[in-house]
């Protein structure tokens, strides 16, 4: 296959070593999260945030109500995190390529 003007065709394997390693690491972490979450679910553990528990404790000690600056209800939080992390991934990838990408010979 002839490479396009960016030389992409030379490197279009489905699972190049970088992608393969990233997928392996991601799946390993997701598997650990799944197992931990399943264990906590089976044992009726609340799985709440530690920071939040300590904030509640501090609120009690301070006799004041703690609150985040905004409160994202339900799936809005998942949406906000997904958007933030999607663009964070793009920025990291863009700069990763600048810093760690292999230079073309010649």
């Amino acid at each position, binding site marked *: 296959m002839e490479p396009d003007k960016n030389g992409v065709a030379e490197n279009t394997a489905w699972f190049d070593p970088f992608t393969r390693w990233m997928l392996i690491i991601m799946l390993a972490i997701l598997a650990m*999260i799944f*197992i*931990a*979450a399943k*264990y*906590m679910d089976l*044992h009726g*553990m*609340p*799985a*709440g*945030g*530690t*920071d*939040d*528990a*300590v*904030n*509640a*404790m*501090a*609120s*009690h*000690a*301070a006799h*004041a*109500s*703690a*609150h*985040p*600056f*905004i*409160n*994202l209800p339900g799936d809005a*939080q998942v949406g*906000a*995190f997904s958007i*933030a*992390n999607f663009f*964070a*991934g793009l*920025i*990291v990838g863009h*700069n*990763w390529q*600048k*810093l*760690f990408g292999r*230079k073309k010979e010649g």
Partner: protein
Amino acid sequence: MKHKSGAVLLLAMALLIPANAYAMHIEDGILPPSAWILWYGVMILFIIPGIREIKRRVQENLSYKPFLAMIGVAVFVISSMHLPVPVTGSCSHPCGTPLAAIVVGPFATAVISAIVLFFQALFLGHGGITTIGANDFSMGIAGGISGYLCWKILTRFNAPLWLAGGIAGFAGDVMTYLTSAFELALNLHGHISLLRQWMIFFAGYGPTQLPLAVAEAIFTAAVLQVMYNRRPDLLPGIAGRRGIFSKNANAEARG
């Protein structure tokens, strides 16, 4: 006796209260204005040299700008990751600031951590606007500097990089939560001694955070080892002293 039972009650609350939201960092409303203004002031004392450090290193190294951008965003993502810890039945997050302090500098980390905390508070409902100073001091300054110092001391004694990075990650993570607990205790200890209240708050964080500190140690060590293999010139003080250059650095040197 009364103090002891109060301490036990607070500890039980920390471990047993079910949380409805999954908030992170210290939130608005807990610290009185005198406290959060103080922590803002302390933060500014580190932000000013941080801006100077960024300006200086941008002049020294062309790679520093994209590196700082990448590390800043990485700290945002890492400190947003709520990971479940089945031992305690709760979730918490790593910090990423020990790694940041090693690679972009401890004062620059105070700057990027403040920006990260601002965006997390404003858009994700994590932390608070009034508590950015306190949260930056614990995560960006205490966590970053402690990790940085561990790294510097261990590499000076020629410890393996993975070991130096791992200990830096672990120490930075634990120090972040020790400092958070101290900030809360300093203002809220009331009639209980400061030390006792500090340990009560840390006992709230500790059981979940210690396994995550181990994870942060492994992550920090792995990233530093990969960086050392690919771009040791980006690790300040390492390439020169150990006399090792990456293929990229050699290629650049050859022009």
